[in-house]
C-alpha cells in the first residue's frame, strides 16, 4: 500500500511550486514517486532516498580521513568554535526553513558573528539596487492574471526555473489573460540565444557586460530623445521598437537573473532596470521581479530583516547589527582574511564561490551542515548531515515574490538524524552555557 501526499512544496528553486504530489510507502519512510515537479525537483525528492547517504556527523582527521562522531560531539565542536572566534561567519541559510534561520540568528547574536546568505553571490546586488531606488513589484499571480508584456532579462527560466513559464509567466490563462501565451508578448535580453530566448517575440542579444547601457538607452527611447546608432551591440531602431512594445502593454513585468546581477555594473544593472520599470509606470502598469535561486533565500532575507534590519551580509561583531556589502559580505571577508571561523548551513559556497574565497575556508575552523556531500563539506573540518528540508522536515519558506509558503514533511528522515533546527537548538543551548547567558 502507498499513500499520496498532495500540495507538496518543492524545495529546489525560488519558484516554490506547491502543487507537487508525492507517493510514499505506507509506513511513511520511503518516498516512491514524484508528480508535477520539474526534472530537477524530482531529482531533489528522489535523491533524499539515496542508499549511500551520510547519516552521522564526521570530523576530518589529520591524515585526511573522516571519523564518525556523535551529534553531541558535533554540537560541542560547533559551539566551542563559535564561542572562541573573534569574527566567525555563519553563512548559507537559503536551503533551510525560517525556523532554523531564526535559531541561527540567535546563535549569531550570542556569538557576535557575521551572518550572510547566498544572496551574497546571487541577488545581493539586486538588494543593493532595491535599497538605492526601490522596487515596483507584484506577486506571481498578478503576472498570471494580468501580464501581457513579459521580459526576461539575463535569466533563463527554461533551465534555472523550469516551471516558472508554465505556472506564472508565459503559458497560464489568468483572469484577464484568457488566451494564455497568445495574450502575451515576450522579450528576452541575453548575450546567448538561450532556450528561453528561442521562444521570444523579440530577442535583444546584448553585448555581454553592457546591460546598463542598454537599459539606459531604453529610458532614453521612452522619452524619444537622441540615441547613438548602436548601443550594446543593438541598433537604435531595435531598441526603440522594444521600448514601444513595452509601453504599449497593459501590464508588464521584467524578470531578471544572474546575467545582470553578476555581470559588470552588477547592482547598477538592476538599479537601471528598476528605473526602466518606474518610467514605464508613467505610461502603463509595470513590475519587476528578481528570479531568486535557492528555494528559501528570500525567507532568509526576510528573517534577517525583521530581526536585524538588513536582508543579508549582517555584521553583529560589535553587539549590534551593521551592514555594508563590500565590507560585511562573505566573499569580501574571506578574500580579505577577516574571518577566523566558518559555519555553513543550507548552501554550498565550496561549489559557488570563486576558488580564492574558498581557500581561506580550508584554513580556518569550519563546520558544514548539509545533507549532501559537497565541495564545502569536502574542505570543512566537521560535516554535520541533517534531514532534508522540505522533504523530511517542513517549515516556512518564501517564494521569489516574497509569498510565504509552509513546506510539508513527506517522509521520515533516517533513524536518529536531526533537522537543521534541532541541531541549531542544541548548539544555541550549549553556546549559552559557554557564554554564561540565560
Amino acid at each position: 500500500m502507498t499513500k499520496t501526499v498532495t500540495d507538496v512544496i518543492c524545495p529546489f528553486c525560488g519558484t516554490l511550486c506547491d502543487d507537487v504530489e508525492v507517493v510514499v510507502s505506507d509506513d511513511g519512510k520511503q518516498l516512491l514517486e514524484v508528480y508535477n515537479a520539474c526534472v530537477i525537483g524530482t531529482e531533489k525528492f528522489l535523491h533524499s532516498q539515496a542508499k549511500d547517504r551520510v547519516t552521522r556527523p564526521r570530523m576530518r582527521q589529520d591524515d585526511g580521513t573522516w571519523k564518525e562522531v556523535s551529534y553531541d560531539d558535533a554540537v560541542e565542536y560547533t559551539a566551542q568554535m563559535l564561542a572562541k572566534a573573534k569574527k566567525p561567519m555563519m553563512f548559507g541559510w537559503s536551503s533551510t526553513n525560517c525556523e532554523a534561520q531564526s535559531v541561527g540568528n540567535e546563535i549569531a547574536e550570542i556569538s557576535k558573528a557575521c551572518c550572510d546568505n547566498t544572496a551574497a553571490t546571487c541577488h545581493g546586488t539586486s538588494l543593493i539596487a532595491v535599497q538605492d531606488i526601490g522596487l515596483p513589484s507584484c506577486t506571481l499571480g498578478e503576472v498570471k492574471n494580468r501580464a501581457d508584456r513579459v521580459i526576461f532579462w539575463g535569466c533563463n527560466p527554461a533551465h534555472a526555473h523550469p516551471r516558472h513559464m508554465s505556472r506564472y509567466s508565459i503559458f497560464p490563462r489568468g483572469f484577464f489573460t484568457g488566451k494564455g501565451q497568445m495574450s502575451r508578448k515576450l522579450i528576452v535580453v541575453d548575450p546567448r540565444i538561450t532556450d528561453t530566448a528561442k521562444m521570444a517575440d523579440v530577442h535583444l542579444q546584448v553585448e555581454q557586460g553592457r546591460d546598463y547601457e542598454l537599459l539606459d538607452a531604453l529610458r532614453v527611447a521612452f522619452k524619444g530623445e537622441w540615441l547613438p546608432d548602436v548601443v550594446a551591440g543593438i541598433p537604435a531602431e531595435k531598441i526603440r521598437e522594444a521600448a514601444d512594445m513595452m509601453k504599449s502593454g497593459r501590464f508588464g513585468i521584467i524578470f531578471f537573473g544572474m546575467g545582470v546581477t553578476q555581470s559588470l555594473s552588477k547592482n547598477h544593472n538592476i538599479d537601471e532596470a528598476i528605473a526602466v520599470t518606474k518610467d514605464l509606470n508613467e505610461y502603463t502598469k509595470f513590475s519587476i521581479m528578481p528570479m531568486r535561486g535557492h528555494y528559501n533565500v528570500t525567507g532568509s532575507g526576510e528573517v534577517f530583516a525583521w530581526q536585524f534590519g538588513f536582508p543579508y551580509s549582517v555584521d553583529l561583531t560589535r553587539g549590534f547589527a551593521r551592514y555594508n556589502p563590500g565590507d560585511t559580505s562573505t566573499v569580501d571577508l574571506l578574500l580579505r582574511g577577516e574571518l577566523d571561523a566558518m559555519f555553513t548551513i543550507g548552501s554550498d559556497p565550496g561549489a559557488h564561490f570563486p576558488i580564492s574565497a574558498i581557500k581561506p575556508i580550508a584554513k580556518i575552523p569550519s563546520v558544514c551542515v548539509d545533507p549532501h556531500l559537497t565541495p564545502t563539506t569536502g574542505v570543512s573540518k566537521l560535516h554535520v548531515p541533517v534531514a532534508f528540508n522540505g522533504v523530511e522536515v517542513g517549515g516556512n519558506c518564501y517564494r521569489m515574490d516574497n509569498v510565504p509558503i509552509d513546506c510539508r514533511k513527506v517522509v521520515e528522515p533516517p533513524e536518529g538524524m536531526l533537522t537543521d533546527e534541532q541541531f541549531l537548538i542544541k548548539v544555541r543551548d550549549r553556546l549559552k552555557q559557554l557564554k554564561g547567558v540565560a
Partner: protein
Amino acid sequence: MSEYIIKNGHVFDPVQGIKGDKKDVCIKDGKIVDKVGSSAKVIDAAGKTVMAGAVEIHAHVAGPKVNLGRIYRPEDKLFSCTPTKGIERMGGGASIPTTFKTGYEYAKMGYAVAMEAAMPPLFSRHVHEEIRDTPIIDEGAFPVFGNNWFVLEYLKNQEIENTAAYCAWLLKATKGYAIKVVNPGGTEAWGWGLNCLTVNDPVPYFDITPAEIIKGLIEANEYLGLPHSMHIHPNNLGNPGCYETTLDTLKLAEGYKAKNKFGREQVLHLTHAQFHSYGGTNWGDFESKAKEITDYVNANKNITIDTGNVTLDETTTMTADGPFEHHLTGLNHLKWANVDVELETAAGVVPYIYSPSISVCAIQWAIGLELALMMKDPMRCYITTDHPNAGPFTRYPRVIKWLMSAKARETQINAFKHKDKVLSQTSIGTLDKELSLYEIAQMTRAGPARSLGLTAMCGGLKPGMDADVAVYNFNPDKPVANPDDIEKAFSRCAAFFKSGVQVVSNGDIVSNGNKRTLWVDVKVKENQQVMRDIDEKFIKYYSMTKNNYEALGHHFIPNPYALEVDAT
C-alpha cells in the same frame, strides 16, 4: 504567578471613572483583583501616574510591507543600532524598528496591545511570523478586504450573506482580527495603474463603486457581529481637498447601528483622519478641514477615529493604497517600492521627510493635533501616528506633550519656517485646550479598547481585566515645569505589567513577557456556494493552492487567543 500591589499612585481609569485618585491597584494571576495577600510585592507609585496598559489601534508593525521598508532602508538603521542590554534581543531601526525593538519600545511606553493595520491575506503567514518575534505586546492583524475580488463580486450583486461567509472564512484562514478597507476599489484599479478618487468612481472591470464596497462591508461586519467595526482608510488620501471624499465616506455609515456582544458602539472606524482632513485645491492653498471632519464625527455617534499625527520626523510611508505611494514618489523622488497582491490588494512604500521648514508638513502637523483637540468625546478619538506613515510610534510621548500643553504647541509653531502659513491655514493657533491625563487615558486606553471590542479584557483597571498596568514618573499634583517632562515621563515607564508580569522596571525591559496573538474566530452557517467559489478561484487565479493558504501551526502562532463569535 506573583501577586503585586501598586500602591498610592494617581490612578486614571476611564473604565471605572477614576480621575487621578490615590488608589492601589492589585494584581494576581495575570488579572486585576480587588485585593492581594500580604506577601504581594509592593510597587510604590506615590507621586506617580498609574494607567491601564495602552492599546494601539492602528500601526504598521509586522508583515511584508513593513519588512520591505526594513530591507530597503539600511540608512534607517545607520547609527541607530545599539548594543543590547540585559535580556533584550538585538534591535535597531528608527522609523521601521526590528520586531524585537518594536515590542520593547511599545512596552517601555506602557503599551499592552497593538493592531497591525493591514495584513495582505496571501502574506498572513509572514505577518504572524513577525508578530511571533515581537515580544511582550499582544497583537492582532487586520486583513484587507476592500479590493478583494470575492468581495467585489459578491457586493456587485449585493450578496451580504456570501460576503460575510467569505469574510469569516478569510479571518479564520489568516487568523485575522477585523475587516480593514484601504482605498476601496482604488487599489484594484491600481492593478492597471489607475485609481478611484471618489466614492462613486467605478472600479475598472468589476462594475462596482467604492461606496457600494463600503456599505456592503459595514453590513457584512454587523451581520457577523465582529468585535471591531469596518476600519477604513478612505479614497483620495493625502490630496488637497480630500476632506470631501472623507465626508462622503462617513455619510455612508448613516443609519447603521452596531450589533455585537463586545460593547462596541461604532460601525465605522476612520483611521489616520489627519491624512483625510485636507482642504484647498493645490499645495499652495492647502488648508485644514479638521473642523468640518470633527463636526461631522461629533454629531454621529456610530463613528470612531484615530488621528495619524505628523511628528515632524524622517520616516517611511507604507500603505495598501498603492496608487498613493506612486503619487508620492512622483512628488519627492525618493525610492519607491510597490507590491501588487493577486486577487486581494497592493502596497507601496516611500521614505518621507516631514520637514518643519516645509509649510505643508507644518500644516499636516497642526491638523493632526486639531483633530484630537476638537473631538468632543475622547472615547471616540485615539492617538496614532499611523506608524510609520506620519511618524514613528515611538513619538507618542511627544504627541501627548503637544496635546497636554498649549505652551509646547506654541514653541513648535514658533519654530516653523512658515509659521504664518500654519496659522492662516489652520486654527491651531486659536486652540488653547489642554488635554487632561484622564482624556489621554481615554484616547489611548479605554477608547481604543472599546472600539476594538476588547472592553472585557484591556484598556482599564477594573478587577477581572487583564493586569496591564503602567506606572509613569509623572506627578499630576505638581504643575508641569517644562512640557518636555511630559514627553520624558511617557517615554519610559517606571514600571509596566503585562498580563500580570512585570516587563519594565525603571524604563528597562526585565521580561520578554507572554505575548499573545489575538484573532477572531467566527462561526457562520455552512455556505456551499462560497466554498465552491473559493475552490474555483484558487484553481484558476491564485498562484498557490488553497491547502497551502492558511496560517496554521505553532511556528506561526505559538500563543493564540481567539475571540469567538457565533453568527450562525
